């Protein structure tokens, strides 16, 4: 299957190989830049996340895709669904804000708040999950949920549980970009 393509590469020379490799690399680069640009515009480190647990049922189920924004000047209120990351923990958690305690805005941060969260489907609030902290601060919040898409997140879950899928997908994409000429 690849003999035709390999022959073509040898025939067309080094520049051609560089051009085809550039095709592949620029697809990856543009995807990366779109992700970073989205993060900058939404002021959120990870503007699209996947729900992994069932602690927010019946609002969100495992496998839902969530869209977040984190405007620096906006105060969060009770009832907002936020995604936060406790320092020392790898994975962010998506739960609802239970209590907010507002402070006066200081120089560096426009909004000063202390928050307590709880998952809708949990019995108790999240103090246990805070790893020693008594409350969350604004800097721990990744963003507030603005919208969601059901089921789509299962693709990411599958790729995390079966890493071979990730490599297969990347490999397939790479092959396609290398042998196709626009």
């Amino acid at each position: 299957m690849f003999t035709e393509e390999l022959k073509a590469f040898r025939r067309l020379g080094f520049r051609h190989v560089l051009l085809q490799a550039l095709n592949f690399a620029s697809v990856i680069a543009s995807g990366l830049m779109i992700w970073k640009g989205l993060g900058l515009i939404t002021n959120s480190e990870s503007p699209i996340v996947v729900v992994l647990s069932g602690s927010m049922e019946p609002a969100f189920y495992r496998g839902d895709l969530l869209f977040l924004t984190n405007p620096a000047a906006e105060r969060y209120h009770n009832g907002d669904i936020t995604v936060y990351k406790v320092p020392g923990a790898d994975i962010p958690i998506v739960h609802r804000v239970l209590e907010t305690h507002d402070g006066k805005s200081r120089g560096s941060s426009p909004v000063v708040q202390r928050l307590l969260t709880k998952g809708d489907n949990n019995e108790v609030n999240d103090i246990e999950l805070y790893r020693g902290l008594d409350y969350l601060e604004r800097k721990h919040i990744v963003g507030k949920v603005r919208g969601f898409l059901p089921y789509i997140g299962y693709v990411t879950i599958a790729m995390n549980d079966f890493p071979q899928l990730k490599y297969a997908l990347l490999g397939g994409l790479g092959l396609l970009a290398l042998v196709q000429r626009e």
Partner: protein
Amino acid sequence: MARKKTANGAAQDISTATTSTDSIPSPPSPDRPPGPLSLPPLPGPREVVKVNNYSTTELKNACDDAVKRYLSRPELFQQNHQHTDVRLALGWLSVFVAGGTGLYGYKVEFEQSKPVVWVGLILYMLLTFTQTLYSYFIEGDIVFVGKRKTFSKRIITERITLSSRTIPVSSSSSNSTPITPPQYSLSLSYVRSTSANKSLLAKGKTQARAPYSRFFDAEGGMDGDAFERWVGEVVEEGMGGLPASKES
């Protein structure tokens, strides 16, 4: 179909295609460097090129590659890779900028990384935009830019530029007009001058088109000899001299 006005017999007169601009008549034969048709074909079996007949992109790419291979033979023109190099340079630079920005964003915490990531993003967008503009406006349809220096009494410099595009299948509204198959349109501009461009010897612009079916068989194999002959004729016509044959 473009019809060429052939000159009245004399080999010195230029035959011009209907789309060509004014051509300066070339001097008598001794001063004219050899054209591609006068070269013998390369020895050894030709590598078979096989493409998907139904994709005009593949057909055009195969023809473009054949043009480049044919005209960059040592006795013919030396290819100028400027357009390709600019595209490669801008493209790879933008990839590295993107990679660097991504790596920086990964290592450094989000709030602190924001200024640098902004810079990287803006730089990436500028590079991509510049590359797109260059490809669209400056490079355009060009597939081959070549130069040759020959020495006969004085140093003669020739510059040739070829562009190509696919003329798609024309859909006809009336039943009487036959549908033309996809065609390969080759445009050529040629300049011959003495050393340091002090005096212009010949200048020509030619355009020719031929249906892909003339060069590709039913399985998609390319008839390299026929294609090279056709390209040779177009180039010779642009160089001034042999009148090109009418296309089918």
